[in-house]
């Protein structure tokens, strides 16, 4: 079953096209991350899916319903979705318990307020006013209010932006426990690590266009290059290294570290050299390309040398 469907979505603000002909679908139960630089169209897309903005062209469906729908059908639909907005959106005068109970009362079959408060780790702060909480704690309240109605689809718009690493990890843990229950999640983020940690699938937007749609592993394998790393033994005749490799040796650390565009050729060269000079290759590492490298190569701006490699094709793994 398709939980989220976006077809030929276009959104213009005056003469500016924020989203230009984007299509994708998210099956029920999948966690999809929308990744992209500032101004890529991530938030515009998610706000259209949340029903805050109307598309200029194209159509979107969430759980089979047009998110702009109001009235009784719209109300029933909103009981099935949850959202964390890009910035914290809370009444600072309410206590944690008051806010959670208030929102629990809106849904047909809510989670118990106490259960939600425990889940977001604020059991010691039930009576604390939200205005007195830290940024990370407020974000956890945001998340608690988003999930209290047991949503089938959860939208998270940059849920950890501005948080310190510890608070970010705490929030990731909560999101991971939630999605284990089968909730469909659409997440926008700037952080590669966040996408890698949480998502089954990465949709990369740049300049309002979809430029990649793949699993984190596929994306990593495609757009970037693996890394060869080898700590050279002290006795190794470094001066005799073939030219292709010699340029990547750090003399101070006595280490070969290179991004290999042609792994077979580079490894062949290295193995030949080692065999010829009886050098032991124990400790040779070949690391897969990082998702960050793949992402940067996809979204690199014009003039960036990496751009040439990524520009000509759109990464897609649709069968």
């Amino acid at each position: 079953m398709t939980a989220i469907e976006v077809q030929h979505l276009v959104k213009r603000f005056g003469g500016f096209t924020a989203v230009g002909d984007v299509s994708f679908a998210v099956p029920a139960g999948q966690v999809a991350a929308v990744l992209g630089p500032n101004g890529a169209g991530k938030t515009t897309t998610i706000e259209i899916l949340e029903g805050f903005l109307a598309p200029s062209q194209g159509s979107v469906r969430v759980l089979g319903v047009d998110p702009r729908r109001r009235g009784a059908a719209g109300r029933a639909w909103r009981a099935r979705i949850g959202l964390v907005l890009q910035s914290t959106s809370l009444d600072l005068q309410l206590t944690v318990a008051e806010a959670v109970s208030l929102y629990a009362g809106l849904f047909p079959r809510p989670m118990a307020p106490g259960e939600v408060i425990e889940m977001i780790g604020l059991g010691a702060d039930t009576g604390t006013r939200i205005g007195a909480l830290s940024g990370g704690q407020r974000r956890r309240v945001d998340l608690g209010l988003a999930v209290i109605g047991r949503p089938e689809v959860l939208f998270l718009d940059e849920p950890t932006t501005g948080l310190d690493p510890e608070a970010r990890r705490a929030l990731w843990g909560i999101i991971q426990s939630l999605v284990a229950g089968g909730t469909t999640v659409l997440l926008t983020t700037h952080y590669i690590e966040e996408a890698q940690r949480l998502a089954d699938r990465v949709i990369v937007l740049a300049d309002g266009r979809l430029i990649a749609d793949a699993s984190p592993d596929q994306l990593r394998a495609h757009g970037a290059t693996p890394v060869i790393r080898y700590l050279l033994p002290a006795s190794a005749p470094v001066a005799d290294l073939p030219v292709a490799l010699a340029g990547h040796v750090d003399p101070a650390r006595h280490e070969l570290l290179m991004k290999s565009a042609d792994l077979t050729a580079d490894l062949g060269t290295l193995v030949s050299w080692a065999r010829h000079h009886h050098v032991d290759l124990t400790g040779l590492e070949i690391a897969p390309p990082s998702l960050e490298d793949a992402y940067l190569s996809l979204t690199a701006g014009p003039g960036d040398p990496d751009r040439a490699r990524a520009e000509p094709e759109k990464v897609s793994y649709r069968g």
Partner: protein
Amino acid sequence: MADLHSPAPRAAGPAITGRLPGAARLLAAQVRYQLLLLARNPRAMILSLAFPLLILVLNSTARHDVGPQLETALVAGLATFGLIATAYVSHAIGLVTSRQDGVLRRWRATPLPAWCFFAGKITATALMALASVVIAVAGGITLFHAHVTAGTALSLLVTFTLGALAWAAIGTAVTALIPTAQSAGPVLMLTYIPVILFSGALGSQAGAPPWLSTVTSYLPARPIISGASQALRHSGGGIAFISGRDLAVLAAWAALGVVASFRFFRWDPARPQHPHTPAGAAV
């Protein structure tokens, strides 16, 4: 379409089967929520509850020329001052702040019907405004020995309730003209203070030119003050006289506020202008 990138199939999210909560329960929760917000706003409490009482006390101790006629006018005027401070100023500042903080946007995305949000907010505002009236009138009874019969109380209730609803409706509509919470106070004070002063909230308008009386009789403060003054002067049995014209003016302002709110109300915060987008495009 999703083949390779499909996840290991997980159970779909649990289907929601229960019924949505009923209107009465939702409304009761909203009224309670909005009353909490008002009660925890020190500015609102001082302006609405403490300030009118302070002026009454100062008048009762510092002025010796206050006759019975002026007393009722002063009590009615200050009660109205407190009423409008809550129903217009605190109400509108609360809405603008909630809008700026993204709280309205979040409500908009919940199953709560929009009418229920407004009904809850306006009911809470009216209740708080009437509480401020009760305090001012109680102050008048204590300090000036004002006499309040059951008939007086009923007339006061009708006048002040309609007045609170009219100002809350106008306050809701006016939020469309206020971009940020920082600018809410000045805009609201600038529209409220002149109206309330020229309508005689702080004393008699006996020396005012006739044209000013005519103008203020069509604005929504004067009808409340004059209605309340008449009610407070009422003695004897039965309900105190309520001017139909005063009620009609208040009802007209309430209707205008409701229509303008439906047309112009914004749920989304104003955003800083995007470098590539025209102003207001992204809301």
